């Protein structure tokens, strides 16, 4: 069952991704991307990453993509011109290299995982629940990254403002 669901949503995700790169209109691309994200969210769920699923939907598919769509509308972007569809030399080369990269990224599959290393066992999750578990980690062990992210967001904020504002 899980596997079947995985396959279905995987196909959806890939379809969305293909849509992103094939759609002529940016808004269609954005929509495809949202589709991919949602499909991926479901796959997260299938991996028992409920919290991530939520964040994925809310922050990613929701907020971030909203922003993207907003900007597309703001700039009134339409479908791309003639040049887009044509297959040029560099593009062909890019496709070829992309294919190669894809193939190479499959090489790790040959590896076997060396074993369980973590403490996020089903057992533990059952005991404290996945969100609580992650929260504990986030504010315990992972406090430093958490703090850094706040800095990062501050930098992003200030950066976005300085760049986008007409005059400072």
């Amino acid at each position: 069952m899980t596997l079947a669901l995985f396959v279905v949503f995987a196909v959806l995700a890939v379809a969305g991704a293909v849509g992103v790169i094939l759609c002529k209109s940016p808004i269609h691309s954005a929509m495809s991307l949202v589709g991919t994200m949602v499909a991926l969210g479901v796959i997260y769920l299938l991996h028992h990453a409920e919290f991530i699923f939520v964040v994925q939907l809310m922050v990613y598919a929701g907020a971030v993509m909203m922003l993207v769509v907003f900007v597309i509308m703001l700039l009134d972007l339409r479908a791309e011109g003639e040049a887009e569809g044509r297959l040029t030399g560099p593009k062909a080369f890019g496709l070829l290299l992309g294919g190669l990269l894809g193939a190479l990224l499959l090489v790790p599959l040959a590896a076997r995982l060396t074993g369980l290393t973590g403490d996020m066992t089903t057992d533990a999750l059952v005991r404290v629940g996945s969100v609580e578990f992650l929260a504990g980690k986030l504010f315990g062990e992972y406090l430093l990254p958490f703090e850094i992210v706040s800095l990062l967001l501050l930098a992003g904020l200030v950066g976005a403002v300085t760049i986008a504002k007409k005059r400072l």
Partner: protein
Amino acid sequence: MMIPLSYALTLSAILFTLGVVGVLTRRNIIVLLMCVELMLNAVNLSFVAFAHHLESAEGQLYVLFVIAVAAAEAAVGLAIVVALNRSRKTVYADEVSLLKG
């Protein structure tokens, strides 16, 4: 029933590759941005899958942080798109080539 790791990783690789190909082939900067997001999403999938199979929380935490990073990047990226559109009147990557050589 567990989803085999290789399935998730394959999907991740495919999505990542599609993102990369998109960055290389599209002209519209916003689409390029989205392709980069796609790449990050692909990686996230790997993290989640690994976390699941290793029974390790780290992968999931990575995903959380990556999403935050992606959000910040998107903000800055979109700001740049706006700025470019303002100064160059274009959203096409290949038309931004003042600096070269």
